[in-house]
């Protein structure tokens, strides 16, 4: 598999504070990487470095220049006080491709409709984003990320604060997108249970050890117990892993 992101002895953080030190890891084409860690562990900082909107303080982050990112930000960060419709919000992502002083073309309209189709909310296109349920909002943000036809999808806490039904639906949708669209996915979460059945590689961030990517087959309860410094049980139920 082709290497599309490479961290080489990279220190990540901001001017006064290094959050992740001496990071050495690769993300390969087609990976589904689950990043798990508590608040403040550097998950969002890592994502920003992957996308190149934040530069490492030391070391290098090498990026395949052909990558087209689709970023699905945390739902809570969206300002919902202004009544933009779902269609308007999804169309925003095409701003650069539309170009300055131009209106969206028929192709842009079609791409937005197609993205809404993928996440099954085309009927909500003219609904204000602020009137949607949590699960629908997340689908709208996923549609926005998909609208650029990305080959690398970055999902920042896509299921945070969702009820169990909406959470299950969103996770199934993400899994479906990975299988059908053949995109590389990085999914950030602070809940291990959520990611463990979805991703094929894992990165645990906790500020206390040098993080390394773990393959799904390496993930067992002794490894998890070692990483989280507490006794963790990993049980198989109906071909799915349950973390206790």
């Amino acid at each position, binding site marked *: 598999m082709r290497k599309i992101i490479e961290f080489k002895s990279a220190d990540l953080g*901001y*001017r*006064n*504070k290094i959050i992740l030190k001496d990071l050495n890891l690769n993300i390969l084409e087609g990976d589904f990487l689950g990043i798990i860690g508590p608040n403040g562990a550097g998950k969002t900082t890592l994502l920003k470095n992957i*996308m190149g*909107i934040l530069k490492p303080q030391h070391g290098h982050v090498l990026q395949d220049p052909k990558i087209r*990112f689709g*970023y699905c*930000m945390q739902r809570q*960060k*969206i*300002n919902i*006080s*202004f*009544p*933009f*419709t779902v269609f*308007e*919000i999804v169309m*925003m*992502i095409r*701003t*650069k491709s*539309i170009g*300055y*002083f131009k209106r969206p073309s028929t192709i842009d309209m079609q791409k937005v409709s197609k993205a809404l189709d993928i996440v099954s909310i085309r009927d909500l296109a003219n609904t*204000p984003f602020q009137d949607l349920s949590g699960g629908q909002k997340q689908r709208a943000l996923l549609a*926005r990320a998909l609208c*650029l036809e990305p080959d690398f999808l*970055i999902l920042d806490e896509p299921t945070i604060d969702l009820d169990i039904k909406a959470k299950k639906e969103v996770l199934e949708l993400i899994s479906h997108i990975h299988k059908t669209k053949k995109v590389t996915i990085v999914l950030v979460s602070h809940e291990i249970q959520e990611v463990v059945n979805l991703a094929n590689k894992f990165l645990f961030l906790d500020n206390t050890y040098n993080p390394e990517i773990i393959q799904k087959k390496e993930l067992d309860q002794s490894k998890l117990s070692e990483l989280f410094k507490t006794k963790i049980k990993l049980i198989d139920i109906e071909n799915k892993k349950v973390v206790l």
Partner: protein
Amino acid sequence: MIQQIFNVFKEPFMLMGMGGGTIIACLCAYLGLFVHIKKITFISIALSQVAALGIAVGWFIGLNPTLCAFIFTMLGIVLFWLPNKNSKITKESIIGFIYIVSAALSVILIAKNPIAETRGLNLFSGNLLYLNMNDLLIIGLAAIFICILHIVFYKEFIFVSFDKETALTTGLRANHIDFLLYLSIGIVISLTMKTSGIIFVFGSLIIPPITALIVAKKASRIIFLSPIFALASVVLGFFTSYFFDLPTSATVVGFYALNFILVFTFQSVTPKPK
């Protein structure tokens, strides 16, 4: 009564003031939408105060006050636009610091400047009726510039205001576009502060947009409604201030507030469609 209303239009200072006030109010009411989307209400009041300080400094050292307001506002914009890299002091604290220091310095400079006092300089409430042809020309040119800028970059300004982080990931020059947006807000604040005062400029940036937000359910309608609310309040405010001998800027802001209260009350008592 009708004759009295017509008499208002015979007064050149009223026509000049109303014309200038309308342009300023509509520009601010439009730009206020971005202030609302970006959640930078406190930055806009702080910028207004920085512009006021620029005018006070201009009067004090004998330089063109509008030019000084422009320079000070541009410095303020750069300061507010730059990301805060000091984790110990929040951006809100810095904004608060700049606001209060600018206000205090303005008071000191005006108190120590007899010229400013004799010319009736009132940075707080301004005086739209003192507007002259030069002021009107500057405001008109600024309005044309802002209109062109926003016609060209409208959708980019919307995207960057709504979600700058995602805009950056698409390869859009989001930081530059963000700066242009701040620049357009700063230009309007600095060039209109001398004649309009903080109350009028800040009131126009904040109240008409939130009034429009209550009424309209679509972003495209809000963008037109906000300046319309501002325009209506300016006309009503000017007439009321003329007939009842009230300070113009404050009266217009009073009508902004009245508009808001009426719309809010009407929306609250009207049953929502199911």
